[in-house]
């Protein structure tokens, strides 16, 4: 009896909690918080155990899938479980962070009263379907849960639905990701008709015999789904808006788990994407561009959650860049490098989930304390929020890429692999440069945020809190504990490189790797000039932020007060006019077209219908004049008619 046989319970437990809280939560004293904690906690225990089992034994758990619906004699849809090392890693990340966030929420959402019930209902649903997404053994099942996490994201962004901004953001998130989903669906239709099944293994196993053009298109369209869900350029603009939801939601859904689903999908579609060099390059390019432009937008974001949102987009771009590069290298026959890039992407996913989850929860703690999201109104909080500031500092160091923090290991590997691909295709040089520039900007904006929030003169918000007696302690233990745990992981998750044969020995494409010991790896990493480039970038970024926002040696206000920097800053604040463009397409393009079509429907099509009836009425008016009312007229016509018929009959008879 193995624990794996109960793996299907992992999503079921939170879903059970969803049903219980949803129907009975209103009657509970804590509005279902404890049920949610138990449900998600149970799922976490099971998930960690399952993941441990899979990762240690190295066995892929793939029980016989069951037939979900038979569509015809040659098509059917299936449901099943597939846990390989990638799924196991995702299980750890999702379940663990979800549990911490739910625990954190019990305190953070406490002031919401009866509304907590809805919050916990939706969170439980989210955790359940997200875990279901991870466990799926076929693309269809993944898509089903994919849409459901989208629904939860929609509901939770619009949690405070009475705020117009929240309602708008929720709509935008749903619709923009829906565009990606349509692409994903097209990809699924292609695969479904090609293979008559969407099972991962079946598709991976039959790639060589399938039609290569179809596969290339399928890979392209599948990645379209990832563009939407993982907020990649040009569909990235919903994620910053999504910050209208509660901060816990941003941490869980829009940083640590759901947005990673796109990366996970790309990982699942990796063999398909890798069949085409063009598609692989496209994926890498999208990742690189996203990483770069999102980082630029983070540079001057006024809100703490805004910085984190752009940063999330940017880091997701890194992951996609890694996967695209990996697919490209794999396609070109560099299997080992491709596999390593693939692993690096997913390694970054895990590290990012930890440090970004931590940062969001920390931001939540800050907002909880100071009551505002504006960075300019914070400042000097470090004195009052020791735990929050220190744990967030650890995460900032990690994301900036300082050696021996987890972010360094994955980001460095991604950049190294991108550089390696330059040998094959020169475009990767550009991507590498963008990646390095992003690394610099990342270090800068993260520390800008940290310094602005925790150091320097107390801002308006800080003063306000202190003057009014303030909070004596920064946050309840239920909020601080997750911060500390996640910060520990944000520092320490790189150690997974050296447990057993190491991270890359488990997370890879079909076992193409060679294990490195700590010494070997250190030697390899630090002997490469590339590593020093990225360290220099990170250090430079931090230093710049330090002098600008802590020491105030450089006045940020002066720099952006005029000329090109000013215009640039405005452009960045306007998010490169992307929201305007979306609105133009949506309101002016589609809605305008629909209004036109409405006129067409009303006046042309319905006009024809009504026109026919009007014509008939008019024609009737003319013809009815023949009804004189004089009986003798009728009789005469009748007799004439009868005579005519007789004559005709006679003539016809005579002619025969």
């Amino acid at each position, binding site marked *: 009896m193995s624990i794996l046989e109960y793996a299907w319970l992992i999503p079921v437990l939170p879903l059970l909690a969803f049903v219980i809280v949803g129907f009975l939560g209103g009657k509970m004293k804590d509005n279902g918080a404890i049920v949610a904690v138990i449900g998600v906690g149970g799922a976490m225990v099971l998930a960690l155990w399952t993941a441990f089992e899979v990762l240690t034994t190295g066995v892929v758990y793939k029980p016989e899938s069951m037939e979900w619906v038979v569509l015809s004699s040659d098509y059917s849809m299936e449901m099943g479980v597939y846990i390989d090392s990638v799924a196991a890693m995702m299980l750890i990340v999702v379940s663990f962070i979800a549990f911490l966030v739910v625990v954190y929420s019990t305190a953070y959402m406490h002031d919401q009263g009866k509304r907590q019930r809805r919050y916990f209902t939706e969170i439980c649903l989210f955790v359940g379907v997200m875990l279901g997404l991870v466990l799926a053994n076929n693309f269809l099942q993944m898509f089903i849960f994919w849409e459901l996490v989208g629904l939860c994201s929609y509901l939770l962004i619009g949690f405070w639905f009475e705020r117009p901004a929240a309602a708008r953001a929720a709509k935008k998130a749903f619709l923009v990701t829906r565009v990606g989903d349509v692409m994903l669906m097209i990809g699924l239709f292609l695969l479904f008709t090609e293979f008559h099944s969407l099972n991962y293994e079946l598709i991976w196993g039959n790639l060589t015999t399938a039609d290569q053009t179809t596969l290339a298109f399928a890979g392209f369209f599948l990645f379209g789904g990832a563009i939407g869900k993982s907020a990649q350029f040009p569909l990235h603009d919903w994620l910053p808006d999504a910050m209208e939801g509660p901060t816990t939601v941003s941490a869980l859904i829009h940083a640590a788990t759901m947005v990673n689903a796109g990366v996970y999908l790309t990982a699942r579609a990796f063999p398909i994407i890798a069949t085409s060099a063009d598609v692989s390059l496209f994926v890498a390019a999208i990742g690189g561009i996203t990483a770069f432009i999102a980082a630029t937008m983070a540079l001057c974001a006024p809100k703490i959650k805004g910085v984190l949102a752009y940063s999330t987009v940017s880091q997701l771009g890194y992951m996609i860049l890694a996967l695209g590069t990996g697919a490209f290298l794999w396609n070109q026959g560099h299997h080992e490098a491709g596999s390593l890039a693939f692993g690096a992407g997913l390694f970054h996913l895990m590290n990012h989930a930890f440090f970004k989850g931590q940062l969001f929860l920390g931001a939540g703690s800050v907002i909880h304390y100071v009551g505002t999201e504006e960075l300019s109104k914070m400042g000097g909080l470090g004195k009052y929020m020791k735990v929050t500031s220190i744990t967030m500092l650890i995460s900032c160091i990690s994301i900036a890429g300082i050696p021996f923090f987890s972010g360094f290991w994955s980001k460095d590997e991604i950049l190294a692999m991108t550089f390696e691909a330059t040998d094959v295709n020169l475009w990767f040089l550009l991507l590498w440069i963008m990646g390095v520039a992003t690394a610099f900007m990342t270090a800068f904006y993260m520390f800008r945020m940290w310094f602005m929030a925790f150091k320097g003169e107390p801002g308006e918000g800080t003063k306000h809190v202190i003057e009014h007696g303030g909070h004596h302690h920064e946050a309840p233990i239920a909020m601080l504990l997750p911060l500390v745990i996640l910060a520990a992981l944000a520092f320490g998750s790189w150690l997974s490189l050296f447990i057993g044969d190491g991270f890359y020995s488990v997370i890879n494409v079909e076992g193409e790797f060679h294990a490195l010991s700590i010494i070997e790896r250190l030697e390899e990493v630090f002997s490469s000039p590339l590593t020093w480039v990225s360290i220099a970038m990170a250090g430079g970024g931090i230093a710049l932020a330090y002098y600008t926002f802590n020491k105030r040696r450089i006045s940020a206000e002066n720099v952006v007060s005029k000329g090109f920097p000013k215009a640039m800053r405005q452009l960045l604040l306007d998010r490169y006019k992307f929201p305007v463009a979306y609105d133009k397409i949506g309101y002016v393009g589609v809605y305008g077209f629909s209004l036109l079509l409405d006129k067409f429907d009303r006046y042309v099509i319905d006009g024809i219908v009504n026109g026919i009836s009007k014509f008939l009425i008019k024609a009737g008016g003319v013809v009815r004049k023949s009804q*004189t*009312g*004089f009986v*003798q007229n009728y009789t005469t016509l009748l007799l004439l008619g009868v005579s005519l018929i007789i004559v005709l009959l006679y003539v016809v008879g005579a002619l025969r």
Partner: protein
Amino acid sequence: MNIPLEYILVLSSSLFVIGAAGVILKKNIIVVLMSIEIMLNAANINLVAFSTYYGDTTGQVFALFSIGVAAAEVAVALAILLNLNKQKKTVDIDEINLLRW
């Protein structure tokens, strides 16, 4: 001694034409009604004549039906005409076009 069929047909067609002419041309509505009766009788004569000609009594039965129906019809028609006359104070058919468009 048999009267040849043609004679009877000539008689009935003549009656029919006379009746039809009356229906179309006469102005007095009573006369029109009488002309209709003449046409009916022309048809009845035909029925009886062919019945005898073929030696099949069905025609005669139909003629009887026809006479019965005609009687009922006249009763109804006269009742309508009486009412009409009461209202319109006329028997001139050109004055009556109530069912006009």
